[in-house]
Structure formats: structure tokens, C-alpha cells
């Protein structure tokens, strides 16, 4: 089943790119839904005691000890659910607008999905690296072809930055690989058994950290992100913020810390300081942003900073919080970027000051947007809350003062999100917003699904926490400092 999740979108992608059939939209959406169905079935038929389910392990490049081995434990299942839940939503939301050369666009989106699934399913270091890099290629093209102003300059920067980051990870992986006994192997289980001296571990960890910190991104490696989010077409932004940045968080949980626990004590204080600084820094910047999309980009940096801090704290609360928050942040950010997109398509602007009074003319939109906004502000009984609660507790356990500083996010989050909502929706209408039409059927479907998820996962977070509980216990138990 793991294999299917990769190969189905990849074949569909090749089909769309090469054969350019008619009915592209329907095919893409169907593939997305099929993938989601496979993920649900995989999740349904899995064990959650920390073991790896649905394994496929085939010899691939035998001479170099590289195997095509994929499978999913509880964390993997969560990531697969995240990816394949958001994919149909992203595809559906892209269909609200006309896109040039649709076969190419959807082909790239599906290639991206294949690569993302691969990243989350790989249990072989080299395979992980290959998928990690493969994911970069379609998103690069999506942004560079369908992006807005300055897209070439912005996407090139994004590409180079993240690509260089990944190279450092490759070096770390190779170093570990060469330390494996006998004929060497890239298998996760072999790599994780490598014993490193503290100095070695520090360098290896830094290599991983650079790759993942750029991807998430963690302050001060974040500056590619706001420009890229703003410039990309909405579908690309959703892929980037909803799923792709989670590759970094996932990488830290699955690879970085288990591979180099020897360096955790030495480096964590610095990483933690960066993450928490990023939370406050990005939140404060978001307070006065006038471009709605850029505002969400900065808020995303703040949220991911908290997720990263929760991972680095490496305790039960922090890890469980970071995992559930990855899913919920993905859902919310897709909803928010869709909100920005549909405002921009109607008004031709993303500038908050040029909006106002939309609640008056588009009540349905106002309600759904409000629910999603509350999720982003982490109001209890929305999906943003459980993750934020657990993450803050995890960070707080690591250090009380850092926890309190990270906690400022609940204040700033309210400041910038309520400001944005108020500026867009409240007040009197102006000449442009008076013409604002309420949501059509497809838009209602997308935002409705997102809003429903905000509430359902807000009331019943244990469904998600149970998925990862066993795996997190096993990881925490096996990684000894």
C-alpha cells in the first residue's frame, strides 16, 4: 500500500504530462481522492504500537546498499493522511480559476504528491534523500511557470537555498552510511545504530539541521519563504506551506534527532533559542503587514517555529503536539491561503487596507472564514488548540521561561489575525467590496470541508493523538541521550 501511494500519482503525473488527455481536472481530482482513500485504508488496517506497517522492501542498488524500502509507522500514517487529505482540497481549490496548460499544472502537482508520499514513507536514507530532492523539482516549476511578479528571481532563490540545504543533509547521510558496519547500508535501522562521538554527532546534526531548518523554515533561514509564498500561485503556496514545510519537521523527528542523539544536549539550546526567537520575531512582523498573503506567510513562520521548538524539546508533549499541529496547521493554512486567493480574484488586490465590509455582502464567506481564522488563533474546540497546548507545554517542560516566551504567540496570534479579519470583513463596504460576490458551490465545498475539519478535529483531537502515541513512545524510548 505504501508503494501504491507513490506509484499511483507518479503514473498519473506521467500520463498527464505526456499524453495530455482531456478531462484533466477530473483525472487529477480522482487521483487525489483515490490516494486519500488508500491512505484511509492504510491507516485503518495498521497497528499503532510503533511498528512499521505496509512495508515494501525491494533490493534496488544492491552494490551501494540502497534499498527501495517504504513503510509507515504511526508518524508515517499521520504524514500520509496529511498529504493525501490536503491534495484533493488543493486540487479542488485550484479548479476555481482558469490555469494555463492544465495538464502540465496538474501533472506537476501529482508528481509533487508522489515525491511527498515518498519522503514520508522511506525507511532508507538514500531513498529519503532522493524523494526529498524530487519534491523540489515540480514545486519549482509550479512557482516559476504560474507565479506572479518576480517569479524567476524569487523561485530561483528558493530553489538554490533549499537545494544547498539538502546537500548538507546528503553529506551527513553519507557520513553515517560510511560508519555502518560491513558492506554499508542506508537502512534507517542501520543508520540509527551508528555510534558517533559527540563532535562527530554535532557536525552530522548540523548538516541535517541546515537542510530541515531551511525547509521549515526556522529563523534566520526563513527569508526565502514570504517572497515565495506571495509569488507562487495559490496551489503552489498551499503545497509549500500545507505539506512541504512539514518535510523539515518530519525529517527532524525521524532522522535528525534519532541519528545524532549524542549532540542533542549540546545543540538543542541554540536550536531552541532560534525557534523561539522566530516565533516572536515573525509574530511581531505579522502585526503590521499590509499584504494579506505575506501576513499569513509570517504567521506560518511563527507557527512552525513553535512546532520546531516542540520537536527540539524532545518530550512526549512536544512531539505529540508537533505531530498533531502539523496536520492542523496544514488544514488551516490551506484554508487561509484559499481565502486570500478568492479575495484576490474578486478584488484584484491583497492589500488589507483596500478591503472592508465584506461580511455585509458575503455572509457565508464571513462565517467560514471566521471559523478557519479561529482555528489559526487556536481558540479551544478548534483544531488549532490541542497542538498549541501540547507544544507550549512541551517547550515549557524544557524550560519554563522559554515556554512563557513562546506563549506570547497566543497573544500576538490574536492581534494579527483579528486585525486582518477585521480589516477585510468589518467596516463599511467600498466601491470594490460592495460588488463582492459570496462563495460559489466549489468554493463553499473547499472552505466548508476545511471549516468542518477545524471543528471536528477541535472537538476530538484524541483521534489523531492515538495514531502517533505508540510510535512516539517507541522513538522516545529508543533514543537515549
Amino acid at each position: 500500500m505504501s508503494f501504491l501511494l507513490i506509484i499511483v500519482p507518479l503514473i498519473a503525473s506521467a500520463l498527464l504530462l505526456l499524453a495530455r488527455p482531456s478531462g484533466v481536472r477530473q483525472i487529477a481530482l480522482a487521483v487525489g481522492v483515490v490516494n486519500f482513500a488508500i491512505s484511509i485504508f492504510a491507516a485503518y488496517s495498521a497497528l499503532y504500537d510503533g511498528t512499521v506497517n505496509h512495508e515494501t522492501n525491494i533490493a534496488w542498488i544492491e552494490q551501494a546498499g540502497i534499498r527501495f524500502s517504504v513503510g509507515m509507522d504511526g508518524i508515517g500514517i499521520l504524514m500520509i493522511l496529511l498529504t493525501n487529505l490536503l491534495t484533493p482540497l488543493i486540487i479542488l481549490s485550484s479548479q476555481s480559476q482558469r490555469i494555463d496548460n492544465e495538464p502540465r499544472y496538474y501533472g506537476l502537482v501529482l508528481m509533487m504528491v508522489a515525491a511527498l508520499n515518498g519522503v514520508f514513507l522511506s525507511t532508507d536514507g538514500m531513498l529519503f534523500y532522493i524523494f526529498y530532492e524530487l519534491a523540489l523539482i515540480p514545486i519549482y516549476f509550479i512557482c516559476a511557470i504560474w507565479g506572479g511578479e518576480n517569479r524567476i528571481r524569487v523561485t530561483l532563490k528558493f530553489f538554490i537555498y533549499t537545494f544547498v540545504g539538502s546537500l548538507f543533509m546528503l553529506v551527513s547521510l553519507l557520513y553515517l552510511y560510511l560508519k555502518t558496519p560491513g558492506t554499508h547500508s542506508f537502512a534507517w535501522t542501520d543508520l540509527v545504530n551508528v555510534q558517533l562521538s559527540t563532535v562527530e554527532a554535532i557536525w552530522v546534526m548540523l548538516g541535517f539541521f541546515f537542510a530541515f531548518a531551511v525547509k521549515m523554515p526556522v529563523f534566520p533561514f526563513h527569508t526565502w519563504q514570504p517572497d515565495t509564498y506571495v509569488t507562487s500561485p495559490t496551489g503552489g503556496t498551499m503545497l509549500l506551506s500545507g505539506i512541504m514545510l512539514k518535510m523539515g519537521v518530519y525529517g527532524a523527528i525521524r532522522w535528525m534527532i534519532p541519528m545524532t542523539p549524542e549532540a542533542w544536549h549540546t545543540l538543542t539550546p541554540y536550536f531552541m533559542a532560534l525557534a523561539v526567537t522566530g516565533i516572536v520575531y515573525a509574530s511581531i512582523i505579522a502585526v503590521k503587514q499590509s499584504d494579506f498573503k505575506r501576513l499569513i506567510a509570517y504567521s506560518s513562520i511563527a507557527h512552525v517555529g513553535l512546532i520546531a521548538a516542540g520537536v527540539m524539546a524532545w518530550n512526549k508533549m512536544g512531539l505529540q503536539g508537533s505531530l498533531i499541529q502539523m496536520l492542523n496547521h496544514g488544514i488551516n493554512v490551506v484554508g487561509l491561503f484559499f481565502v486570500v486567493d478568492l479575495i484576490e480574484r474578486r478584488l484584484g488586490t491583497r492589500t488589507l487596507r483596500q478591503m472592508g465590509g465584506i461580511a455585509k455582502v458575503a455572509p457565508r464567506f464571513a462565517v467560514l472564514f471566521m471559523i478557519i481564522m479561529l482555528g489559526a488563533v487556536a481558540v479551544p474546540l478548534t483544531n488549532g488548540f490541542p497542538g498549541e497546548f501540547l507544544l507550549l507545554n512541551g517547550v515549557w517542560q524544557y524550560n519554563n521561561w522559554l515556554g512563557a516566551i513562546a506563549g506570547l504567540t497566543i497573544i500576538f496570534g490574536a492581534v494579527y489575525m483579528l486585525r486582518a479579519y477585521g480589516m477585510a470583513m468589518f467596516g463599511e463596504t467600498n466601491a470594490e467590496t460592495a460588488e463582492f460576490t459570496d462563495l460559489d458551490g466549489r468554493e463553499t465545498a473547499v472552505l466548508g470541508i476545511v471549516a468542518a475539519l477545524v471543528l471536528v478535529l477541535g472537538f476530538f483531537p484524541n483521534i489523531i493523538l492515538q495514531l502517533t502515541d505508540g510510535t512516539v513512545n517507541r522513538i522516545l524510548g529508543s533514543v537515549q541521550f
Partner: protein
Amino acid sequence: MVGIIGAGSLLASFLLTVMCLNQVGASGPIQSTLYHFMSIDRLSLDFGFLVDQLSVWMMMIITGVGFLIHVYSIGYMHDDEGFYKFFAYLNLFVFSMLLLVMGDNFLMLFFGWEGVGLCSYLLIGFWYTNRDYGTAARKAFIMNRVGDLGLLLGMFFIIKTFGSLAYKDVFAQLAGADPAMVTVICLLLFVGAMGKSAQIPLYTWLPDAMAGPTPVSALIHAATMVTAGVYLVTRCNGLFSMSPDAMHVVAIVGLVTAVFTAIIGLRQNDIKKVLAYSTVSQLGLMFLSLGMGAYVSAMFHVTTHAFFKALLFLSAGSVIHGMGGEQDIRNMGGLRKYMPVTFWVFLIGTFAISGFPLLSGFFSKDEIFANTYAHGGAIWWAMASVSAVLTAVYMCRLLYVTFFGEFRGTEEQRHHIHESPSVMTIPLMVLAVLSVVGGLLNTPHFMHLPGSQWMAHWLAGNGVNGTPIVPMAEVHLSASTEWSLMSFTTALALLVIVALYFVYGKVANLPVSDQKQTGFTKVVANKFYVDELYNSLFVKPTEALSKFLYQYADIQGVDGVVNGVGTGVSKLGAIFRRLQNGNIEYYLIGMVVGAALLFLTIFI
């Protein structure tokens, strides 16, 4: 129809609450767990409810007063285009408030806590086309969130110290807890209470919250939500009683708030603003009472305050309704002729809050003063009495300026004035009756009246390990001391009521000092410029920092470095770019084929 569903659901809740009340009275607290909300190892955070003597008491207030206010709203909001939305929000509020008091653990309390904050935000900004109202709503939410952060951190300390957030687990382990830790927990919980119950320094949102429709002010910003902080401390009385330092802080904050905001209330001319500052001041008294260890007295004052303050707000709403939206009392006067029912109930409310003998506020305030004298001493008592005198002053000024003398508004307004319809006046009358007789719930022992310490006995109930849910405060004063304390404050109140009549009630025109405000009165009228202070201390610097970080730190600083590093790479990139001939299709096909080939190698 909307009104019937909205108010009907509250009536149903009220009746169910009465049934709960009976059951709790007959067979003790009811506990039930719906499901596990989150479980992390042994820490189980449940969606669970506890209806005991304390929570059912709050539920009675919430659903009872809530029902009356819903009925009133049917008349008040009649012409509003957002009528259905109003009731939706109001019902959502009641849901959250009930969650707050019915939860059996701190997390449930927090759900309700933030939920009522959200509803408050939605209802303050109910008339959303007005940008200023939106700003007031946001201010309320954000200031509350400052408090919520304290509450959240307090919960983290509770988890660490007691390994649980359930009340029963926490309160059962009090004996073995580290006192220093308990003090930290209490202070953090109190930060939450300061936000929600508008205590110094987090009080400035409440007067601005008057932007919301008047029934909202009555329900949320007077009778129920703002008392959540008092409920929290009362619920955690076991914790607070362990920490004299925390109790001291609570008492000081309460007393300072009570006096300071009462002074501001003296010079406000907006009918709702006066009541808002009065609410903050009364909440301050309740916290003073909590700080003295008189938890029951605080809850007693919560109860009577819910009656007379809801009454005052709703009758102020009736005035505003009758005056066609006018809120400045300088443009009113002589209204008793035009709105007799509103006048009489407002008079009852004013006398009740001022401590007129045998009305509800008389008893609840007297209890607080007696406890303050017994546990704090004469100076604390004297300060508290000052706030009581100030209360009588601003309330009588409000009453006399609004309803006595000659009408000072425009001719147009004079034609418009009318008494409100009975759907509004009947709830007023019910509340007026409650404001009169509410004191009988807990009359002092030494007076030998019916209802002697009835509420105190009820709330004592039976909690964890047989300890009382809310312990009775012991007042070791002789009956003669109690009589003289009571007589003194009552005499002062009566004196104020009479004296103010000659200043405001019997004169045709307003005194000059109320028309032109200069010197110190101007400072008071401008609320001691606290808003301006906060603005220049917190809001402006944050905004400036936001712009600075974005323009300089981020774009020029961090990104500048990145671009500097990247220049070399970019040059390399320029070389690689020449490999691209611009035909992306060609290039993509190559890539897909390449990837497919790579996978094919698996099977070869």
C-alpha cells in the same frame, strides 16, 4: 420565531438547572465524563462535567438571568437586521459560560474561558460596520488573551505539581504540595482572573466593551462572564488558602481596583460607561472579599450584583431605546415622567447597589465589609467603605441626572421618548424584585432574619475528602461591632442618597462642574489617561517594532546576508541556466522518464 428558539432554549436550560439544583441538594454533586479529549500517557484530559453546589449556583444565575435577558432582547433587538445572528451568538455565549462553570477540570474551564471571550468579541463587535466597535472588540479579546496566557501557564504548573488537571485530583493532593509552587500557581491563575474580570491592570477593555448592544453588556459584561474570575478563585479556594502571599495580592488588586475605578465612574457622562466602571469597581470588591478569605461573600455579591447590575444595564438599555439611541446623560433629565416603569426599576437598582437598608446589595456588601474588618483590619475596612461611598455617589448622580430635573434633550427627542414595550419591562420588574429580596439568600447571623447564612451552608456542601466546596469564613466579631459597622456604612449611603438629591435631583440645570470639566475633574473624566498610557507603552512600540523588524531586520538584515552569501551561488546558477533552452516540456519529459527508469531498475 428566532426569539422564541433563543429564549426558549434558555428557559429549558433554566428548568434543567432547577432539576440539577434539586438533585444536588438531595444527593450531592453529579459527575459525568463524556469522552477523553486528549490523553498523554497517564494524563487524561477529559470532556467531563461536575455539577456541585458551587457550579449549580452559577448555572442558576447564568440560565436564570440569561433567560430574562434573552426575553428582553426580543424587544430590544427587534428592528436589528442581525436579529438571528444576535441570538446565535448569545446562545453560544451561554453554552461557553456553562462549559466554564460545569467543567470538572481546568481544561474545560479554559474552554469555556476562551469561549466566552470569543463570544464577547463577537458581540462587542456586533455592529461590525462601525470600525471603532471592531477595535473595542479586538481590544477585549487581546487583553483577555494576556490573562489567558497566565491561566495557561498556571495549568502547566498544575500538571507538573499534581499530575492532573481534574479538580478532584488537584484538591485531593493539596496537603502535600510545595507552598512556593502553590503561590506561583495561584498568582498565574489570578492573572487569568484579572483579564476576564477586568481588574487592574487589565481592566480597560471593559468600558470599551460597552460598544456592544446593551443586553450584551448586561449579560456578559455585568452578570456572568466578568464574574468568571471570581468563580475561578472560589473554585480554587483550597489552593488560594494555602498561599497568604497570593491572597494578599488578590486583596490589594481588588481594593485598588474598587476605589480607582469608582473614582473614574464619578465623572463619566455616558450612561453605560458609568455602569461599566461601576461593574469593574464591584468586581474589585468581590476580589477584596476573596483576598480576605471570604469566598462565600464574594459569591453572594456575584449573585446580588447579577440581579441589580443586569437590572441597571437593562433599564439603561430601556432609556437608550426610548431616547432613540442617546447615551449622554447630560442630554436627558426628567425621564421619570416619560418612562415611569424604567424609572422605578432603575431607582430600585440604584438603591440596591448603594446599600439601601434591606435591599440585596446591602446584605452582600455588608458581609464583605464585615469580613474585611475582621480579617484585614480597620484601614482596609475604611478604604472599602470609601469605595462604597463613591459607588453611592456615582449611582445617585446617574439616577438623578437621568430621571429628575427638566428634560435637556432636543425637541425631536422629546417627541420620541416612550416607555419600552412589556417584553422589555417585565424582565425588568422580575429583576427588580430579585434585587430587592436577593439579600435574603444569605442574611447575616447576628440579625436573626430569615435565610440566615443559607447560601453559606449550601455552598459548603461536601467536596473532595469531605472538605467543604466553599468554606465559610469565620468572622469573630461581636454582634455589637457588626451592628455598628453596618450602621456606619448604611448611614453614609443614606446620607449620599439624600445629599445628591439636592445637588442633582432638585435642580433644573446641571452643576457647572458636570458641564465643563477642568483640572482634576478633566483628568478623571479622561479616565486618568490610562488608555493613552497603554497605547504609548504597548501598542505604539509594538507597531513600530513590527515595521522596523520587517523593513530593516528582515529585508535588509537577514535577507541581505542570505543574498550576499547567495551571490556566488547565483553566478553559478547563471551558468547552469544556459543549459536550459527554454523548452520546459522537453525538459519535464526527460525528468519523468528519468524517474521512471530509476524505479524500473527495481524490477530488473
